[in-house]
């Protein structure tokens, strides 16, 4: 029979290899899924993973989109990875993303129609504060009352969504919008517009921030005591307390950083690609970022690659839906499967699989 044998040390090879195995397995399972839906699986896989980057007609649209969609995923996932490493489960990034967007857009719209170079930086700060404050709710409830942060952060996503609805119907509604829900479009308000910085690359301030965050988080984890304490707390909570790490400080730090970054991502999204506060401007980046964080092994570089891959599935999914009539939900299912396969292959890192020969019993 098959049995698992613990390894003395986690396998580095498998740590790097398992995401690739998981992606391959997901492609196979996804292919079967598409085939069951009556689509040509090879064509579907090609459209999703190949055409956005390499097809001559499509890539001019799709390549910039890759960075536009990857930036929020990578940003949020980088923040989440800190908490996940420490065993602090912020799964409400979607809510912090929304609140960052509302704060950021709110500040921008408050200045309308003034023209100043200070408006956009202020919006960035406000976005980070919005996400940070929203994440402080589960953080403070956890430190003060020992309330489960998983449930609180998640439930707050629904609350944030209703606040968003209220904002786009009320406070932030475009006064010149003929009564339609949604705010003014920030893309047509230059001082508040998170514009494309280099034409046809998709690079906007969010992408720049993601690169900066990548370096900062990498250095934090590899070289800084905070990163060390986060890793220590995740691997051995008692040892961390013994070392002198305060659990409450860690909760506030991890939730604060991940909330602030998610808020930033929301602000960059609403002031650029999406353009306005509307009832459903958020497309679930906060949840997909959880997949990105795990697929990237909670490692900053891995997260960057995983963010690009998931962004690719978003764009490829759109193309497949357009060209093959593949339902957009299929991509969501596909992304979920990816996480499952990754978790399933995780076992190879810490265990060896051995055949045990039958024992005479």
């Amino acid at each position, binding site marked *: 029979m098959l049995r698992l044998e613990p390894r003395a040390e986690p396998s580095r090879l498998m740590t790097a290899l398992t995401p690739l195995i998981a992606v391959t397995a997901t492609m196979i399972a996804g292919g079967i899924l598409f085939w069951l839906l009556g689509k040509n699986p090879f064509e579907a896989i090609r459209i999703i993973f190949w055409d956005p980057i390499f097809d001559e007609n499509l890539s001019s649209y799709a390549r910039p989109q890759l960075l536009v969609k990857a930036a929020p995923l990578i940003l949020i996932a980088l923040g989440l990875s800190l908490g996940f490493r420490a065993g602090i489960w912020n799964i409400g990034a979607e809510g912090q993303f929304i609140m960052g967007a509302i704060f950021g857009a709110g500040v921008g719209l408050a200045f309308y129609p003034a023209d100043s170079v200070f408006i956009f930086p202020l919006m960035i700060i406000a976005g980070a504060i919005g996400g940070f404050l929203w994440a402080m709710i589960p953080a403070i409830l956890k430190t003060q009352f020992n309330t489960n942060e*998983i449930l609180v952060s998640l439930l707050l996503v629904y609350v944030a969504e209703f606040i968003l609805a209220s904002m786009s119907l009320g406070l932030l509604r475009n006064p010149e919008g003929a009564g339609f829900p949604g705010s003014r479009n920030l893309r047509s308000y230059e001082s508040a517009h998170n514009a494309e910085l280099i034409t046809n690359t998709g690079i906007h301030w969010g992408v720049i921030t993601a690169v900066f965050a990548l370096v900062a988080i990498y250095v934090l984890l590899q070289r800084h005591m905070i990163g060390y304490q986060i890793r220590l707390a995740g691997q051995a909570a008692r040892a961390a307390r013994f070392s002198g790490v305060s659990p409450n400080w860690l909760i506030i730090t991890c939730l604060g950083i991940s909330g602030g970054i998610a808020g930033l991502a929301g602000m960059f999204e609403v002031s650029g690609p999406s353009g306005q506060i509307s009832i459903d401007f958020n497309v679930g980046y906060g949840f997909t970022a959880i997949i990105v964080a795990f697929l990237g092994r909670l490692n900053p570089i891995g997260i960057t690659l995983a963010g690009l891959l998931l962004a690719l599935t978003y764009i490829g999914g759109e193309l497949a839906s357009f060209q093959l009539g593949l339902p957009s939900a299929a991509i969501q299912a596909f992304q979920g499967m990816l996480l499952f396969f990754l*978790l399933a292959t995780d*076992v190879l890192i810490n265990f060896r699989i051995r055949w045990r020969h039958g024992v005479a019993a």
Partner: protein
Amino acid sequence: MTDFPILALLAGMMVAATPILLAGIGEMVVEKAGVLNLGVEGMMIIGAICGFAVAYETQSVTLGYIGAALGGAMLAMVFGVLTQFLMTNQVATGLALTLTGLGFAALIGQPYIGIKGITVGDVPLGPLRDLPVLGPVLFQHDAMVYVAIFIVACVWYVLRYTRTGLVLRAIGENHHAAHALGYKVIATRLTAIAFGGACAGLGGAYLSLVRVPQWTEGMTAGAGWIALALVVFASWRAWGVLVGAYLFGGLTALQLFLQAAGAAIPIEYLSMAPYIITIVVLVIMSSGRARASLSAPASLGQPFNAST
């Protein structure tokens, strides 16, 4: 007070409570066995679409519920295999279950969007229906309202008075000791996980067959997470889940009534009330000097590997 429809509210409470009651009691059994499955939302929504689709295709509510229970249990078994055999992190796997469940449900549900579901009739309780006050509140419901209560009673009895229940609790308390005594930790947990999935599936199906009743994407809208909170509220006691679900159902019914009555509060703020109240309740339950954590099964969420 004259036009305040207290009876309708109480009747609405029983209906609003049933989905989270079913999902909550299932999850409580799973947690009693020492497993934390955060995928309740995913299993509920799979149950919602499976129940709706099967009931619509077969024109049978019963078959719909059976389909929903099977769908929920099947998804739960994915979680079971991953966490019990491959020892994956239970939190991450539960989240994956929710994300995947939402995706697959949306996929399966494509052809059913906008279709009117089949009618689910009330249980013919004869003269009981006509009782003053009690009749409209308690005895004019569909069968699943009563099945849910029956399941709670069964869970309570089994956990408290049977050997199976004792073994399940023991495994949730200390899986190493249970293993040393020769009990099958993984098999028991898999059974509990499947039961939890089936219950969550039924809860989801109740939404799509009775409560709404039609299929819309993301229709569970956090009910699975509220069911998880319910287990904490109940301090892992079966009747506690029932009380919690009914309190919550009552608040939901009241909120809906206020919306319909055109109260001065904007709809968005009324709609977010259930989530905020759930958070407040969680805070109260967890702050009582770690009271809730005291009754939590000691092995909750910890992986078990017999070979070590």
